[in-house]
């Protein structure tokens, strides 16, 4: 047990926070000074932090004797890992090093939240979650959420770098908006897959695809909002800055689906709500 926090895997949590903080700090410094070697160092440090994060998940998996994706605390280890992974892939594809400090900060925020609301002991897996679908369903969703987070960050960066109030996007902004769209496409595909897997899991466990549970409904609302975004960004009037705003708003729906379920009156009966 860590002397700093009584959380399970407390030492891993503190180490992971340190690693993400150092990479966020280095990458921010690199963007301010515009030194390429420092940028590379930021990317390497984020990769290292991601590997450490992966090791923490592996440790929790072995210690709990099950996939550590049951509680909110546990997903706060999975989510930063996915954020780091997706952002590193995008940085490699689009050469947008500006993403690195934001990804590291996002990952750090997750671990801070975990430190703030720690699990003190492993929760046992109820019968309903003991299925081969559990891991792919949850991991696919978190990959989707990570991609959509990156997409929203890129949208905000594009809005921030955009000049004045011109709805058309300029050449400095275009790489960000393109990368944002690509991340949103990938995130939407993963969201669709996660939703389909959830439906198939429900079918195999209860005989019904859909049971109108609060989280299911909000996941569907989130999916519909991204569907709307992907259509709107192709329409003339909604191109450019408006589409970027829609993307950011859609991520708000993701966050509500992820964290806001306990605010709903129907939450107590849901299988999806984190205790």
């Amino acid at each position: 047990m860590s002397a700093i926090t009584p959380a399970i895997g407390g030492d891993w949590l503190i180490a992971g926070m340190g690693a993400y903080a150092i990479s966020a700090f280095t990458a921010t410094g690199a963007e301010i000074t515009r030194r390429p070697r420092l940028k590379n160092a930021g990317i390497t440090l984020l990769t290292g932090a991601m590997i450490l994060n992966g090791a923490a998940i592996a440790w929790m998996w072995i210690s709990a004797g099950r996939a550590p994706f049951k509680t909110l605390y546990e997903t706060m280890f999975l989510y930063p890992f996915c954020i780091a992974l997706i952002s590193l892939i995008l940085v490699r594809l689009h050469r947008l090093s500006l993403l690195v400090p934001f990804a590291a900060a996002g990952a750090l925020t997750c671990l801070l939240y975990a430190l703030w609301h720690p699990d003190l002991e492993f929760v046992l897996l109820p019968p309903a979650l003991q299925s081969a679908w559990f891991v792919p369903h949850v991991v696919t969703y978190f990959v989707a959420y990570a991609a959509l987070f990156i997409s929203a960050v890129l949208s905000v960066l594009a809005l921030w770098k955009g000049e004045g109030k011109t709805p058309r996007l300029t050449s400095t902004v275009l790489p960000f908006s393109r990368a944002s769209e690509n991340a949103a496409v990938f995130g939407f595909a993963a969201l669709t897959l996660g939703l389909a897997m959830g439906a198939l899991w429900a079918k195999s466990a209860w005989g019904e695809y859909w049971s109108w549970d609060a989280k299911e409904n909000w996941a569907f609302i989130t999916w519909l909002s991204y569907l709307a975004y992907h259509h709107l960004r192709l329409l003339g009037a909604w191109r450019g800055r408006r589409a970027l705003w829609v993307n950011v708003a859609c991520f708000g729906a993701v966050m509500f689906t992820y964290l806001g379920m306990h605010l709903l009156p129907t939450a107590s009966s849901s299988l999806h709500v984190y205790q």
Partner: protein
Amino acid sequence: MVALLSGALIGNMFGTRGNLELRVGTDSCSFIDEDKLAQPLGFTLKLDKFDIEKYPTEYRMYVFAEGDKRYSVIQTASIKDCREWIPVSGTETRYRVAEYYPDIQIEDTLKACNDPSAPSAVRVKVLDGKAPSEKWVMAGPPTGVVKGLQIQCIEPGGHDALAAATGSPTPEKHLITIDHNTFEVRLGQTYTAPGSGRKFTVVEFLPDFYYDFQKKGAATRSAAPNNPALGIEETTAGKAEREWLFANMPGHGHKPEQLDAVYKYIPPVSPIEQLWAIDGKTQELIFASGGKIVLSQSLKAGQQQQVSIPASEENGNGRIVTIELQETLDHAVMSKVARTLSQEPKNPGVLVEVKRGDSVRQAYLVPDADSAPIEDGLSLAFKARSEQPKAYKSYVSVVNDEGAATQSTIAVNAPLKYNGYTFYQSGYRSDKKGDCSSFRVVNDPGLGAVYAGLIMVAIGVIYTYYVRPRQTAGGNSRLKEGLS
């Protein structure tokens, strides 16, 4: 997409779905569909057994913080991980589980200590008939060791008190304190108060005083000294004024003009006929009877002494028992000692050590009982993590037309497929008659089409977003190459 929707549609139109509830030992060849109609299955499903598998009980240590209204857990660990010192978050204190007892029995015992004010103690073995018993006797009042025999442990110089305890009975005493002077009074006598010189007469004693509102006077409820009251009378100007002094309530009902006296009641002492005693320090065995020390001899550890218990109403015929001195302690403190009765986790308990600086405190803890204090507002508890369901399992037999039975199980996430029907574990209930398991019964011919549709949608998405753009991009570049 078409395949997906058509699959769902087929499932909806041609499929049937419903519910089936079976009590353990019963069977059914039909289920109740959505329209509350019985639908034949074409085979018989029998529920042989229903079982809730539980996760094994886990024993854990919890550190609790005392909040405004409730306790909250601030940290916890499995007892397996508590063999090493564990820091308590936010404090300098550490704790560990020093010993784990699967089937704990905690007994009071005495152990030696260095405190010179602590009383001495002796351990004696008593052979009364077949079974020998061991008992600790601490300096103080006599302790019963076997039926009819009390042994007292005395300190050197305690002989007189021991003799007096077997002496003639002492009657009750009434003591009165006036102006820091205490003196014994008797009924009917007149006394002069020291200091003021006021004269008063002790007129009445009521052992269990109450005020009788019907008779409008003081009375006693019983002969037991539950509320001893002493009535005194003072004559001033030829008029007798009565005042009640209460031993349990000094000053009760006292008026300023009345005599300021404090009353103490000492109940009568009926002595013990005879008493055996051991002096723990000088290792002497003493026998007192009739107010005198009758016997006083050295008794070494391991040495035996026969003691006679006289015949009485309580003890029946007199008998002889043997006492043997086992151990003496000059200064003893009461402590607890634990052992395990078996290796089965029937009644688990732990010995915990809480360490702060150099001081280590020990405590025995059992689940859902007292906790051990750590420091201000923090305490350590040992708890069993309640058994939680791991699986809901129905053991069923399927009997087909030819009467051949196949045994199978149905659980959440593990439905039974048979002859086009799928049985899902959907619930259970227990009542006086036994367990009852409920199933969702679904016949869904469109499921294959739904799977196919979903796979096609997935391929379609990948094709639209990743394969086609690459092809067109490749085509464009080839076109450009061709042009240049």
